[in-house]
């Protein structure tokens, strides 16, 4: 809903939190986002804590190289985002637009790469419900033959469920972000942001960096641990 906050007609900051409404509102909203991911990530931690035997080794099923690249890629989009914000502060319209476009493009590509990753995993036979019967993974697991180093767990239904839920909802957030970002970019091209009032850029930036931050956590605990 970030864009809704952005659409607020400009008004000088009222005292109170010491920041203007849209920014405060975004931080408040992010508070609830934190709790949403708490539900997902918390469940993951809890379920995994009790069922280590149902978890595969890092990189055994998941494609870490491509995700590592995607992580790096998302960090890039964060730096382009702050660059855009800095440009807005300096009132440098040209740079602002350039950086925003870059951010939108990179964000969209992140989603694309994740979609590719999903396709690959599903092809392998790794589903939210566990192994796909008859798939390469299912066979290896049944046979107990080493697969990328060690034997696969007997079942990965929890692994799959938590993996797809967490990364899926992160992907969903990125998609939302890209849409809102496209809207902000469009406004930027209409010259809506000045050196004195560029709240839209700052607010969408907050959301964008939050999503990046969540990914930093997810990448570590889902792919590397």
């Amino acid at each position, binding site marked *: 809903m970030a864009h809704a906050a952005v659409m607020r007609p400009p008004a000088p900051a009222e005292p109170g*939190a*010491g*920041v203007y409404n849209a920014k*405060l509102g975004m*931080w*408040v909203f*992010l*508070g609830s986002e*934190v*709790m949403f991911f*708490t539900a997902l990530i*918390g469940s993951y*931690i*809890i379920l995994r*804590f*009790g069922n280590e035997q149902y978890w595969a080794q*890092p*990189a055994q099923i998941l494609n*870490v190289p491509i995700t*590592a690249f995607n*992580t*790096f890629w998302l*960090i*890039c989009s*964060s*730096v382009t*985002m*702050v*660059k855009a914000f*800095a440009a807005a*502060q300096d009132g440098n319209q040209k740079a602002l637009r350039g950086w925003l476009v870059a951010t939108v493009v990179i964000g969209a590509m992140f989603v694309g790469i994740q979609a590719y990753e999903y396709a690959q995993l599903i092809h392998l036979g790794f589903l939210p419900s566990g192994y796909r019967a008859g798939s390469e993974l299912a066979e290896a697991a049944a046979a107990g033959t080493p697969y990328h180093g060690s034997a696969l767990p007997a079942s990965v239904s929890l692994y799959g469920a938590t993996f797809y839920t967490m990364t899926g909802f992160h992907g969903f957030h990125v998609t939302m972000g890209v849409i809102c970002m496209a809207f902000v970019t469009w406004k930027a091209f209409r010259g809506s942001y000045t050196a004195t009032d560029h709240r839209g850029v700052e607010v969408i*930036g*907050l959301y964008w*960096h*939050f999503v*990046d*931050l969540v990914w*930093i*956590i997810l*990448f*570590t*605990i889902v792919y*590397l*641990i």
Partner: protein
Amino acid sequence: MEQTEHAKHPPYVGIFAALAVLTALELGVAFFENWPKRVIILVLVFLAIWKALLVALYYMHLRFEPNRLRILALAPLPLAVILVIAVITEYVW
């Protein structure tokens, strides 16, 4: 970090570099065979928290916000911790 305090913009690119390096470090550690899993996990979490902090403090410029806002931003975290810890005790009982 000190001199950047006064610079007009925080060292955004420098932080970007730091994030990239930390990510590389993580990858290194994660597949470092001859460490016990426990240690690896601890190190990884430590690194991840560092990355998260960099993003929150500089990219989300919490570092330059009034305290009220920082508190507001951190408020939900204790609740998250309470939930996870309480439920995990189900397994250790």
